[in-house]
């Protein structure tokens, strides 16, 4: 599928903040728009499947209820959901390849939030032994991202933030799951 085919794909899923999606459907394209947020795209040629997540960590100090450990725990959760779904389909850390996108420093009041998000994603992937084959992070522009999960083909276009619909711009706080850390004793 060439770039035009990605753009014209009829079977498209929008991966919103806090969400992830994995597929081996050759007709499917996963799309998202990123500002400060990060999207990790994983592809494993051994199973011809891939996936994308989309998450945001709050900048330390931006939310007094979220200390740095809790932010890393949330980021790790977002990463683990995506990796687990890939592994369930037969992927392995040794054969997966990762791309990192996003992490723009868009919000002037929180100038380094994008950099913090990109640093977290890079460190997580390195520690988990998943090779990073491409990284497009930082700057001040937003990004429109399309991934064809069955082939790993990716299109990333930088776009002015004024061209991004407000519904696609991330809030300053991460979208944590509603039941964080729930404990159930049997």
């Amino acid at each position, binding site marked *: 599928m060439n770039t035009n085919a990605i753009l014209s794909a009829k079977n498209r899923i929008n991966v919103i903040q806090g969400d992830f999606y994995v597929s081996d459907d050759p007709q499917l394209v996963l799309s998202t728009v990123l500002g400060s947020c990060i999207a990790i795209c994983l592809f494993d040629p051994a199973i011809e499947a891939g996936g994308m997540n989309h998450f945001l960590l709050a900048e330390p100090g931006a939310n007094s209820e979220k200390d740095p450990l809790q932010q890393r725990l949330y980021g790790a959760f977002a990463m683990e959901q995506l990796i687990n779904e890939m592994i369930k389909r037969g992927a392995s850390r040794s054969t997966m390849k990762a791309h990192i996108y996003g992490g723009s420093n868009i919000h002037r009041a929180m100038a380094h939030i994008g950099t913090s998000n990109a640093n977290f994603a890079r460190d997580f992937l390195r520690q988990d032994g998943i090779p990073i084959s491409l990284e497009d992070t930082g700057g001040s522009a937003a990004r429109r991202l399309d991934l064809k999960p069955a082939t790993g083909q990716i299109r990333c276009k930088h776009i002015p933030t004024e061209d991004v619909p407000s519904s696609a711009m991330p809030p300053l706080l991460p979208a944590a799951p509603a039941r964080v850390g729930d404990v159930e004793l*049997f």
Partner: protein
Amino acid sequence: MGPITILTVDDSPSMRALLKHALVGQGHVVHDAEDGLLALDWLNRHIPDLVITDINMPNMDGFGLIEALRKQDRYRDMPILVLSTESSDEKKARARDAGATGWIVKPFDPDKLAAAVRRVTH
């Protein structure tokens, strides 16, 4: 509560590091293993006070680890907590039937984790 010895089992090095950071910060002694088989190997040579295990892991998953431990007399009553991104009732029921003591949904809250550790090890 005095320090206890905890074995954490998770295939993600990043998650193991975060879990160790939280538990060591609460004063506990923490060892870790990256899957159920490696955990069993460690548990053949050591007896911790608590096991905290992920579910989705290669080689031997969390269900397999719990079932294997409950077949051993010395691990029949030891607390085993599951720590997973999964939260379906079906998975929880399977863990309970295998012999798990409780289920914690990731991302864990360090304070809730500390409270659960206190409760199951007393």
